[in-house]
């Protein structure tokens, strides 16, 4: 069953098009990474899924229902952490967590206590005195302690320190084991790589790439660093790019389907050392984002 499904989803504000046809499919039980540069439409998509914004066109389904019309019923089954967490300045963190849980049903006090301990959050402080990271922890504890089937997290860790980031990842793994679905919009690509089963990249209001990390890697090149005893000219090989050389050490990237030929060609040259790195999500991301920059430069 698809937990989230959008087809040709559009949203425009007057003449400005925020979404120009977003196709998303998030399956039950998976952790889905939603990445894209600033202003590409991540939050707009999420806010349509939450029923905050009315879509301009296309289809959007959340847990089989209509995010706008069935908002209240659907929200019983989801938990949401906004990207920019603002909290009532005069309430304490504990009061906010309690309120958000009680609105959805019961508050699981032992689970809340456990999460407060793990995230090292003092629930007696007023929200106005929390730092950005601590406000995010309040929203995370509220979301993680609920028994929602689907968690929609909009850049939930942008203010967390690396230790807390680690704890966040542990929590997400636990939820995944319990069979919950997680929709994670993030800028921290290492986090997406560590957590996500599938990834969608949005650019200028359109999904430009969607698939598992493995599938996405096939679209790009592998980086090879090799130290050769004999000298040779790599330039003539097919499917090889971005060659750089420092004394005996070569560094280049290879198209995935040209790997065999390249390895065969360099094998007789006396390999002293060899490192092969699969492309990182960052490179994938930069490839798409880079196009953007080039386009703008051309204009």
């Amino acid at each position, binding site marked *: 069953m698809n937990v989230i499904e959008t087809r040709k989803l559009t949203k425009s504000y007057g003449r400005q098009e925020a979404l120009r046809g977003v196709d998303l499919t998030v399956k039950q039980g998976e952790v889905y990474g939603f990445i894209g540069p600033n202003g590409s439409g991540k939050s707009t998509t999420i806010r349509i899924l939450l029923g905050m914004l009315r879509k301009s066109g296309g289809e959007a389904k959340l847990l089989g229902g209509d995010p706008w019309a069935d908002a209240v019923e659907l929200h019983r089954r989801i938990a949401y952490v906004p990207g920019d967490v603002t909290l009532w300045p005069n*309430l304490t963190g504990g009061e906010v967590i*309690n309120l958000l849980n009680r609105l959805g049903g019961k508050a699981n006090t032992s689970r809340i206590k456990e999460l407060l301990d793990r995230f090292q959050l003092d629930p007696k402080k007023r929200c106005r005195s929390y730092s950005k990271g601590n406000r995010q922890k309040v929203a995370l504890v509220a979301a993680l302690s609920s028994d929602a089937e689907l968690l929609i997290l909009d850049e939930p860790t942008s203010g967390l320190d690396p230790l807390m980031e680690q704890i966040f990842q542990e929590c997400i793994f636990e939820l995944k084991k319990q069979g919950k679905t997680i929709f994670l919009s993030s800028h921290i690509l290492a986090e997406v790589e560590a957590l996500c089963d599938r990834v969608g990249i949005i650019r200028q209001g359109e999904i430009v790439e969607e698939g598992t990390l493995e599938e996405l890697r096939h679209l790009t090149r592998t980086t090879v660093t090799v130290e050769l005893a004999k000298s040779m000219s790599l330039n003539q090989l097919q499917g090889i790019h971005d060659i750089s050389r420092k004394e005996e050490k070569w560094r280049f990237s290879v198209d995935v389907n040209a790997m065999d030929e390249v390895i065969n060609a360099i094998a007789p040259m006396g390999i002293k050392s060899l490192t092969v790195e699969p492309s990182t999500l960052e490179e994938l991301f930069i490839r798409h984002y880079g196009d953007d920059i080039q386009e703008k430069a051309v204009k």
Partner: protein
Amino acid sequence: MKQFTGTGKLLRLYIRRDWLLLPIWLFLPVVLVSGQMTFVKAMPDWRLFIEELSESAITSAWLGPIYPLSLEGAILWRGMLQAAIVVLFGAAFTVIRHIRTEEMSGRSELILGKPVGRYANVTAAVTLSCAGSLLAGLLCSASLFSSGFAAGGSLIAGLTIAAAGCVFAGLGSVLAQFFGHSGQVRGAIFGVYGLMMLFMVLNNVNGGYSTWAWLNPGAWFRVTAPFAENHIWPLFIFAGLALIMLELSYALLNKRDMGAGIIAERERTKNADIKSPIALAWHSHKRAVVVWSAGLSFIGVFIGAITPSISMDTMGEMLAQLSGWGPAMMKLGNQEGFIALSVYILGLMGGLSVFVLTFVQSMRGEENEGYTEILLSKPVSRLKWMGSYLAVAFVGSAIILLAFGIMSGLGWSIGSGNSEHLFRVTAMSISKIPSVWIIIGIAALLYGWLPRIASFLGWLIWGVFVLIEMLWEAGIVGWSAMKWTPFSYAHYSIPINEISMISLIVLVLISGAFTALGIIGFKRRNII
């Protein structure tokens, strides 16, 4: 001087940010003064009229005697109070906005991270407000002078209005150092002004020229006496007072952390169990309801207590013929007329209307801050969120009016030794509830359908209602025009036992309809 680096640049930024708000309080005073001028000049025999008004016990308790007893004096008599109120609130709120609201949002840190002196922000904000006050005052001067009044008197009258703004700019900046939340600072300003209103009434019942006049900027023209003695020296005292307040703000600024107030937040020892949108709305606003109830109760006791000292002399014939106002007041008698007018001004037109307008408009603030989104992402319907908020507005305003009525009635009963007044005044106050609810309904309707301009339109509509009221009192428009305002159905000129229950019920139904329409609009639109 390092402390002031960047003041000029900040001042320019503030002017740019306020280009829509500034003109409102810069030009409204001159409109009010000119309006009063037109009104007095339109009278067939203004001399007789102002003599009569000056001697009326009801009007003189609120507005004091006319001085000098001339055309100029008749214009100052009401115009100065209104102009001063606009300028002092405009100046104080401008300062609060640029000091405390900026700090709350964190934008101040962005500015302070730049090479900007510690005092630059406060100095620029106070300078803007003082310059605005001066401009507003001089516009009034120009208006008076251009209609043929003496130059000296016109100038002093304008500067007296400006002085009210400058002192309140200083006061706003001092209070903004004390409280961590801009709402608290604005509340404190309202509180200070409420207290000053008592001093004004005390001044008026003591003949109009007592020391009390120094304690309300609306009465300062009795100290400077434009077109009569033309005293200049009090203006220097007012300017000095504003400067002392500015110095005090600097001193307080050095004593506190950025983002915090001098008054420290109390630590919460136990977390409250807030579990529904209505509990949250009540938790967020109960303080405002309590403060308004307490404040109006305090003023109410005072007003009730001085009511027996209002002279029961009948008013002159001329006044009795003036519009519908005179005969209505004759019917009520001076004492009941005075208390009915007071309950009307504070419980409806100038007090509770403002309370509910700001209350309903704060929903937009919650939405902008993202609080609404967090709640709506839970299984909370839009109807429930907005409905909870408005329910607190409906119930809260009723509680305040009940408390105000009981305490005013108690004051009068104790003062006069007649316990019947308690019930009578309480009834007067709670008869205002349906009209106040109409204001809630209008504000909710605007918020649901036109959220961006709801605040502006809300104040505009309220302003039109107040204007119609003033035109009616002046005899320029008839009662049929008053019927268009929600104020007229529980008007002070109608004896309490003659108020139509059917009208009140219809008002409640209309406010319910407006509210429902507002919620429908809110359900259909995007959340910010």
